[in-house]
């Protein structure tokens, strides 16, 4: 069972604003967002296109610095960190899974090679074969270790992407609409993987407007026009209560 959302948050966001410069003037990608993301369970950032989901995920993935407000990860103020410290955090604490399955893998490597490269990138230079086999089995990819990643289907690639996140053993996994480019069957298998991840002691943050994925969430954060619209925890979500 996941921990209660009231436990120490992994991310603490306070009045976060992100502006994008455009020829017509700055456009807000995120407006005054104050939010805690629990250190366990799955938080889904939901909302229509342009609502600020991906901007928020970029902020959480340390790809973007907010123009205003503060973001803390495990109590560390990210704004004060140097590029080097931010890279170190990305390397050791965060794994990102992108929307397009193939974008999460190194095309010149095999399936096993990708897992090893992912583990290596987090400082795990020795990645035991039995652990690799377990991960593949967990993902339903057993027997594909020596395959080229291009031989995998989109769903398999996306599951392997989460496998890479597992291989990195980071406490935070961020995923950007991981099922949006998959058919139903593939999406279902990815959801299974996500469900298992959510059951572990990990911070999983996913952007999506996939109803099935929202159903798996322990906390749903709804965004609209770059602003926080509603936050619902698992219990409240089941009752249909949202809080802002």
């Amino acid at each position, binding site marked *: 069972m996941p921990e209660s959302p009231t436990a120490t948050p992994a991310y603490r966001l306070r009045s976060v604003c992100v502006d994008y410069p455009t020829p017509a003037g700055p456009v807000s990608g995120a407006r005054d967002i104050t939010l805690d993301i629990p250190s366990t369970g799955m938080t889904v950032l939901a909302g229509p296109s342009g609502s600020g989901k991906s901007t928020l995920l970029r902020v959480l993935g340390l*790809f973007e610095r907010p123009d205003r407000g503060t973001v803390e990860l495990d109590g560390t103020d990210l704004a004060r960190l140097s590029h080097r410290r931010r890279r*170190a955090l990305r390397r050791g604490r965060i794994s990102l899974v992108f929307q397009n399955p*193939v974008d999460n*893998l*190194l095309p*010149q*490597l095999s399936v096993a090679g990708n897992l090893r490269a992912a583990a*290596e*990138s987090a400082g795990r230079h020795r990645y035991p074969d039995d652990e690799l086999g377990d991960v593949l089995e967990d993902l339903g990819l057993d027997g594909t270790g020596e395959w080229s990643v291009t031989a995998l289907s989109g769903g398999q690639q996306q599951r392997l992407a989460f496998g890479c996140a597992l291989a990195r053993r980071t406490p935070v996994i961020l995923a950007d609409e991981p099922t949006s480019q998959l058919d139903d069957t593939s999406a279902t298998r990815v959801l299974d993987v996500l469900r298992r991840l959510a059951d572990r002691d990990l911070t999983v943050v996913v952007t999506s407007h996939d109803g099935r994925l929202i159903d798996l969430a322990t906390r749903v954060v709804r965004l609209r026009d770059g602003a926080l619209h509603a936050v619902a925890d698992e219990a409240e979500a089941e009752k249909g209560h949202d809080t802002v």
Partner: protein
Amino acid sequence: MPLAWRTAPRAALSSPLVVLITAATALLTCFLATATSLHTSAAAGAAIADRAGSVCEDQYGPFFNARSLTPSEAALVADTVRTRAPEHGFGRPVVGLYTPVGAAEFGDETYRFRLAYRDGGVDDLELLRGTRDSGLWVGSELADAENMPLGTRAHGGALPPTTGVYRDLRLPAPGPWCSARDMTITNRLVDHIETGAIVFATDRDAFDRAVTHFDRLERTVVSFRAPPPSTLDEAEDRAARARALIADVDADLRARGHADLVHGSVPFQRSIDLAGRAESNVGLSILPLAILAVLVGCAGAGMLGVQWYQRRYAVIRLLAARGHGPGAVGLLALAELGLPVTLGGAAGILLARVLLPAYGPPGTIESAETWAAAAGGGAALALSLLLLVSIVALRAHREFQRGRAASRRLRSRLPAYVPWELGTAAVAWAGWLRLAEYGGTSRLGDPLPQVDPLALTYPVAVVLTVGIVTARVAFVLLRLSHRARLWSRPPLQLAIRRLAGARAAVVGVLVVTMLAVGTLAVGTGVSEGQRGALENKTGMYVGAESSVDVGRSVGTGETPLPAGARTGTSLVGRFNYTAGEPTVAVVDPETFTGVAWTRTFDDARLRALLERISAPDGRQLPALRVGAHPAAPPEVAGLPPLDVAADLDTFPLLSGEPGYVVSRDALTDAQLAEVPQWTVLSSGPLRDLTRAFSDAGMVHPNAESRADVLDALPFHVVDWTFSFVTLLGLVLAVVAILALVVAVETRRRQNALAATLLVRMGMRPATLLRSHLAELGAIGGLATVAGVATGVTVAAISVRRFDPVRWLAPVPELPDLAGLIVSVVAVSTVVVLLTALLAVRSARTTTPAELLRA
């Protein structure tokens, strides 16, 4: 090394075309960087080789010359030089001793003769009769004329016996006798064989026995036989050692109380100075454009970095998300493209050395210079790799570390707002002004005009200025192109939109292509113009390939030409009584056109003109008037008044000097007998011509050859400079083609998406192809037209200004560039066609996955 980096070279193989283009870009960049240095060094070597003929064979090192020494003083000088020479790296000196002309009786007759000796000198004479035994060798003219038997001992037996008869030396002096020609060759115009014979002593002992007859020697020469230096460094080294030897010999002789006994010199020093100037002129002239071209090549490497970043964006983002920094991402680019870049660069360096004989001046270069040039190529290679890594790292930093950046667009566009064309125009203007002075002060004695390297950059600066202005205009037009509404012609509208959408790349390709075509045209035009000018000026000056003056009896036909000079020759007579008066030349219409230098004439017209002046009307003598500023017809004693039948700017033998040409056929024998000066023109080499006259024992002064009548170095300097400009044009052309292919390949996905949509909307594939043809044709066509127009115009204007010998006609003319223009148009057409097909093909072969991602 992490797995992703270790396996990166394998990832490069996923796109062989990119690998190929990457290697080719590095190859061209390193080729240019290496070739610039090699070309300059080869120019120095070629200049040294060219100047080797300007001094005698024994004058490449130290040369000691003394007059009026006693035989003992001469021996002292020779010994001192012989002692000191090894310390300075010189071998055994060659001592030449020549007495004044003195009198002695051989048998019953008294003859005037000069006694001559040189170490090993008899080996350079042709022995006709007798032996090499110790004694004296008498010239064949004297021996034959006087029936002098071998064994004759002159001066009542006081002199050694004559043991041989040698063939008399004749002008032009054979190489070994060049520096002593005034001592060893009798001037037949002054000295009769009986009053100026040269008698050689076969060895020093014989000379010492014979020289007791003389108090003093007229000349003493101590020199060194060595092959000419092949490089400037070698020549400079030899000259430095020669100066040191001369100083030591002077000091030794002064210490013995014989100061100023001998004059030491380095005759080749002036040639070394000229070669050095030629090297710096060529080097400094090609340097700006070479730097620009290398920078274009490096920018190409940078563009490859940008293209790699776009292609590998997903991988870069993944690695950045996993905490890898910009430097690591840059190194990933290096790991993937480093090998093709390095191999391409190494091939470029190697190719530059191997192909040097094909593109560079015909000079030798030393291995140190080759290594220095290779180091230049290596520096360009390192710069390319650094740029590749830096650009990728910078982009990764900007995107994944810094996030969004304000005013990025302004900064990236800043270079576009700098008025570069004003700078290049200023350079062009300054070059033009300096060019006005060029060649105006050259003389036969000081043939290399003071050329400012800036002047030589003028044509290229003009091409560059026009290129930048064209780019600016094209950029503005493309920005305004959204106003164009040509939907009734879909291919055109599509082409315009595509061009406007990629206007930065379009302008880049346009500038490089225009520069390529422009530099090709201007390089070829000026370079070939110089070669033509050298040929025509020397041909006009000599009148044919070679010429010698002959006596009046030969000219009139009273004495027949020697057997060896009866074919391929033509006799030309000249009336030229006083300086400033126009010369009247008498030509033989039958032989003249086949022998004389008539390349600048229309053969049929010249024949017709000569035919016209061969038929006098009895009262007047028809003549061709020659010269840009013709003089009034002179009154020539014995000839009827001249009647001008036609005007010509130049004429062989007269060049552009004012003069008149009459036909031999129009003159009577009596009139021919009045012609004071006769010249035999020959279409063969001078050596054959003089040998024919020498063999026949006929006097033939003023021997001249087209090959050495003018110092060719000033022509070569300009030729070599613009040959390199042509080479740069070729390289830039290849760069332009590659850039076009890269631009098409980079937009593969956009093209494919647009094409798929358009075809679904009902556009026919043929229309799509036409749109690509219009797009790429516009770039190729504009660049070709602008480049050819600029290049040809600039070459036409400047080719005359680059005339280093303006006092001698004809002026250089722009060569026929039709072949070049046709080639450029044909290559442009083929490239446009192929790249258009490539664009259409990429659209047709795109996989659905690629389209989905797009």
